[in-house]
């Protein structure tokens, strides 16, 4: 678990970046990544995540602040002297070289002898199960194979840090899921510190030790995937990660870890106050669809219940997805597992649903 100290292996210390000298693309970034950690920078496009990666790689310079690698500032070290491996979005394999020559390139520029190079190339290719492809040209490989070669090339010179810029973006869904698993496995077994950039939240959740959610040039939340999903710290994170039901209202009263929220439709519900501090504040209450329950047997006695009108029932195989009208919100989703005793609600019927107050988080109202 990383905290924003300066003792991490990779550290961003109050880093700012501006391209035009006026608007900051990255505003006051503090991030500490432990050795061997797999950290994902997740965010919508334009959130500053790729800029951060490029600053770490050395292709962009920080306008303010310091980036440290193994406690040494690297702001004034050119990219080719940083020794950081990188996997590019379009793989960036050298088209005029064979796979073997591509892998040999970083070893040659380091002045390694032929026998050492061949040994390392073989090991790297075997690692990504591409041992038989050393004499092919990149154009003769499929997207997934090129992806593996790009990965092998970034690892062959044994860097301590590897950066990945949306490396799976161009692959189809099945291959992408497979590669997610393989990359995570490889990174952990080699003990490499990995910084991974993506806009795909599933990728971020399944692969990372820690996820930094970027928006508007700032880290909105830095947490392990489960904490990020279950305990979002603000309404941007709640909305960006996973599916989310929202109900808008005003805080009536805060008592310890319970906030009384009066919804805009007049109903009053209990919620966990997260980043609301005082009564009278506007709030957006967030509840995950799978934490909403309509089956009375499964509802805890402390659960908060409300009336809901069924708008639409969607059968998705493993789950049922029921769209409800709750407190004026017609897009309130309830996800229930396809269990033998699960009811398939008819559109138009009025049912009673409930959730635990701890799953109901009172967050800030976005501007």
């Amino acid at each position, binding site marked *: 678990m990383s905290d924003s100290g300066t003792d991490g292996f990779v550290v961003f210390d109050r880093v700012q970046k501006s391209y035009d000298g006026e608007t900051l693309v990255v505003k006051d970034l503090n991030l500490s990544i432990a050795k061997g950690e797999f950290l994902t920078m997740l965010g919508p496009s334009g959130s500053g995540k790729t800029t951060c990666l490029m600053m770490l*790689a*050395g*292709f962009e310079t920080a306008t303010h602040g310091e980036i440290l690698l193994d406690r040494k500032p690297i702001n004034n070290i*050119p*990219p*080719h*002297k*940083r*020794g*950081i*491996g*990188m996997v*590019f*979005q*379009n793989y*960036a*394999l*050298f*088209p*005029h070289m064979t796979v073997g020559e591509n892998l040999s*390139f*970083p070893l040659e*520029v*380091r002045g390694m002898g032929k026998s050492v190079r061949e040994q390392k190339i073989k090991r790297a290719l075997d690692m990504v199960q591409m041992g038989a492809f050393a004499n092919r*040209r*990149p*154009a*003769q490989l499929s997207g997934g194979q090129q992806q593996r070669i790009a990965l092998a*090339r*970034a690892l062959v*010179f044994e860097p301590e840090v590897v*950066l990945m810029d949306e490396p799976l973006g161009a692959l189809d869904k099945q291959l992408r899921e497979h590669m997610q698993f393989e990359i995570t496995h490889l990174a952990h077994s080699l003990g490499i510190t990995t910084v991974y950039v993506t806009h795909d939240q599933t990728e971020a959740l399944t692969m990372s030790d820690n996820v930094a959610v970027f928006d508007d040039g700032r880290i909105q939340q830095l947490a392990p995937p489960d904490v990020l999903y279950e305990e979002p710290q603000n309404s941007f994170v709640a909305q960006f990660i996973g599916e989310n039901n929202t109900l808008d209202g005003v805080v009536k009263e805060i008592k310890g870890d319970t906030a009384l929220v009066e919804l805009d439709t007049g109903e009053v519900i209990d919620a966990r106050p997260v980043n609301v501090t005082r009564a009278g504040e506007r709030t957006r209450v967030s509840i995950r669809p799978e934490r909403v329950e309509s089956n009375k047997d499964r509802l805890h006695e402390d659960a908060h219940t409300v009336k809901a009108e069924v708008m639409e029932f969607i059968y998705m195989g493993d789950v049922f997805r029921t769209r409800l009208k709750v407190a004026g919100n017609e897009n309130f989703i309830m996800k229930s597992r396809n269990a033998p005793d699960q009811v398939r609600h008819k559109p138009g019927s009025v049912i009673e649903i409930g959730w635990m107050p701890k799953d109901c988080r009172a967050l800030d109202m976005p501007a």
Partner: protein
Amino acid sequence: MALPAYATTKDKVWYYTFRVICYAIFFFLMAPILVMIPLSFNAQPYFSFTREMLTFSPDGYSIRWYQDFLTSPSWLRSIQNSFMIGIASTALATTLGTLAALGLSRSEMPFKGIIMALLISPMIVPLIISAAGMFFFFSQLNIAQTYLGVILAHTALGTPFVIITVTATLVGFDHSLTRAAASLGATPTTTFFKVTMPLILPGVISGALFAFITSFDEIVIVLFVAGPEQRTIPREMWSGIREDISPTILAVATLMVLISTLLLVTIELLRRRSERIRGVTPS
């Protein structure tokens, strides 16, 4: 393309007329060049077909003009001059043009359009104006009527070709490749020679060939800037026509057509190679 079954009479007439026009254009462009080739083998010192040539009598043909070309000291010096000036100006133009194209292809380069226009202006400005300008300018610098002067003048003419061909190659160049090379530990110099250069090489070479041909058949600037020492082949042909009318210039012209054709074939082969490397068509 054959005529479709539903073609009307009008379509048919146009179809054949169109072909006739095409052949006529082709004839108009090629005839003056092609007619030189048999004439250069004339046994007589005339610029027209003799009776013997028309009857295909072996006596009508000879290679005396080729012999003349390759034994005359003034022609030999012009060959030497042409190649020397051509190669030197091509080397300069290729280096400068490639560097300019690389700079102009960078996104952070300001005033791209204006700089590009200035650099390719020698191609657009009437040669006689460039030539006159260079004559006066080079005279001030005391390099008129020297090899350096002619080489520099031809470099200015050849550079735009290199800039244009290399820029075209760089349009499809993936700049993440240079970043990848840097992340793998290569210095900018290594990156240039190992990654960038091999990929833009077809553009560089075709630019160099264009620059060479430009210098090789250039006459206007040579007339202004070159002295008697720097007479090139075209300059010698010019004198040949004006002073002693001899079919030797037909032999020279034939050889120059041959050289140009070979160079153009090379360009085409390089273009195909570059397409293959970029994976446009699988090899």
